[in-house]
């Protein structure tokens, strides 16, 4: 393995992973996406895209608008079903699944156009992330006593930890519809984190933010990856952010894959420069 342009050295360990220069442990391949083809009627949104995501890494998908990046995330989520191709998750071929089954496997997501539940407060929105983990049955829910209320309190505890982590205590009870854009994005991240996912998909988490907000969000993303060990796959336009955050990058353009590798390498790839990065 050759060293990366910014000095990241990679050494393969016995578990087919490696350790980055800043000491993070990257594991084996968690998700393997092979030869995905996605069509809508006459339009081919994704043409034969193949890449993988390693456990513990920060993977970026970049490319111009309309390149099929969000569609790719939708495929991973089980929301779109590709006409061709395979997805392997944790070493097993994944059959065609419903989105809620994908969620049960430990994959969470944020959205480009915020998909918060506008009728609820911040706290309630984040609590929805705990939905899968709440098990107490209907009878106890009706009485809201004993096991039901205990479960609610436990999950409230976890949610409060996330609220502390993302520093959104002040807006806990505010209806999300009245929050500024940057805050809404943070609440959406909190909701995804509440699912305690193994793989977190972020769709343009910094879109529409100013420099300060971007720095905050970048810091949070790094913290999520380092503290919780969550594997992250994000779509991003800002090359500076991608260079700083990502371990590996895949570049899409009009549904086709242009490049796949270390940020430094990809930045120098001629095809990528022609299509996306410019002169």
């Amino acid at each position, binding site marked *: 393995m050759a060293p990366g342009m910014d000095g990241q050295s990679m050494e393969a360990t016995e578990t087919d992973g490696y350790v980055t220069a800043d000491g993070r442990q990257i594991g084996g391949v968690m998700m393997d996406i092979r030869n995905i083809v996605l069509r809508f009627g006459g339009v081919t949104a994704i043409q034969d895209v193949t890449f993988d995501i390693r456990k513990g890494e920060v993977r970026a998908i970049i490319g111009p608008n309309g390149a099929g990046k969000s569609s790719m995330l939708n495929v991973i989520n089980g929301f779109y079903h590709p006409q061709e191709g395979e997805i392997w998750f944790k070493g097993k071929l994944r059959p065609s699944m419903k*989105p809620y089954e994908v*969620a049960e496997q430990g994959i969470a*997501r944020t*959205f480009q156009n915020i998909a918060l539940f506008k*009728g609820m407060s911040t706290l309630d929105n984040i609590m929805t992330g*705990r*939905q*899968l983990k709440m098990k107490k049955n209907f009878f106890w*829910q009706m009485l809201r006593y004993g096991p039901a209320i205990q479960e609610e309190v436990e999950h*409230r505890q976890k949610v409060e930890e996330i609220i502390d982590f993302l520093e959104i205590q002040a807006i806990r009870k505010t209806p999300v519809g009245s929050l500024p854009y940057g805050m809404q994005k943070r609440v959406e991240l909190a909701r995804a984190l509440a699912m305690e996912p193994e793989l977190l998909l972020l769709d343009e988490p910094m879109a529409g933010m100013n420099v300060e907000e971007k720095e905050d969000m970048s810091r949070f993303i790094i913290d999520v990856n380092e503290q919780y060990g969550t594997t992250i796959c994000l779509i991003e336009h800002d090359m500076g952010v991608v260079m700083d955050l990502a371990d590996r990058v895949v570049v899409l353009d009009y549904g086709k894959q242009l490049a796949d590798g270390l940020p430094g390498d990809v930045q120098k790839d001629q095809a990528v420069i022609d299509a996306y990065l410019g002169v």
Partner: protein
Amino acid sequence: MFYREAGDFKTSYKSDLQAFPIRQDKIGIYIWLIIALVVALFAYKEWGIMGMDSGFAMKAIIIPTLVFTLTTLGLNILTGFAGQISLGTGAFMGVGAYACYKLTTYFPDVNIIILFFASGLVSAAVGVLFGLPSLRIKGFYLVVATLGAQFFLEWLFGRWAWLYNNNPSGAIEVPVRTLFGVEITGANASVVAQYLVVLGILIFMTWIASNLIRGRIGRSWMMIRDMDIAAELIGVRPLWAKLSAFAVSSFYCGVSGALMVFIWLGAAEVESFDINHSFLYLFMVIIGGLGSITGSYMGAAFIWIFPIVLKEIGKSFGVGATVMENISLLAIGVMIVIILIKEPHGLARLWQIAKQKLRLWPFPH
């Protein structure tokens, strides 16, 4: 000055999660309960309520309002909290009423209260059946499906003679039933007992509804309502969420249907469950406030009492009852439009805004 949250700290998540976290709200609820009991006392002593004969006030105003509050609560669960528009409420009330009638025909010795809840279960089952299309259909299309349920069930109520014990008039007449030795159905029923039964059931079922809504099931409903795609991506199974909403909602409507026929009307025909009633209940939900329990109480009371008030006003001006009825339909239509323009979340939100202002009083902002 009076409605302050300052100084009212919660030291545990559990206390933060209770139904009325603000102390003044809790006191307000206790006051309402006391008023409700005082009303019962006045009726018992036949002292008259608010200038009216207490029997009349109970039979014409208070008891039906309570019954319709239960209906509105049920519809609100489906439409306000789970976002599934339904125009079949009248028919589901009918299912509850006829189910109760058949059950008490076959089991005349079983306590009628138990049968009320059993007929709710029957209604819930029917509700789930007619809710199945909601898995593929959304929004306006679902309205069409619920209309289908409404018309089909109406037809069934009229044609299936077994339902009304082959009574040639097609109507059902409620047999006399007692609770702790007091008659609560039939012509000689004790009005106070009837009032307390309905009130008790309503309070109990409101408590249950409040619990469900604040817990994970209610959250799953609201997730489906606000953004069903995101909900599914978080792990909510649309099947369970929607069908549970239909089931619970139909349960409430079924019980309220049984109460309406057994306690309030004493008899029923198909017309009691027709499409016009379904519209009425939807109006109660809209004016009261979609997705609000308090709103259900307000909306039901308003829609029921307003036409009565109008009729009284009309009487004092010598205007006929039919004319006033039409005017009240017109006025309700106008009010719906005004509410939707000014405050789509209904009376409940107006009340909330009033409380906000109260918190600051006597300061302007």
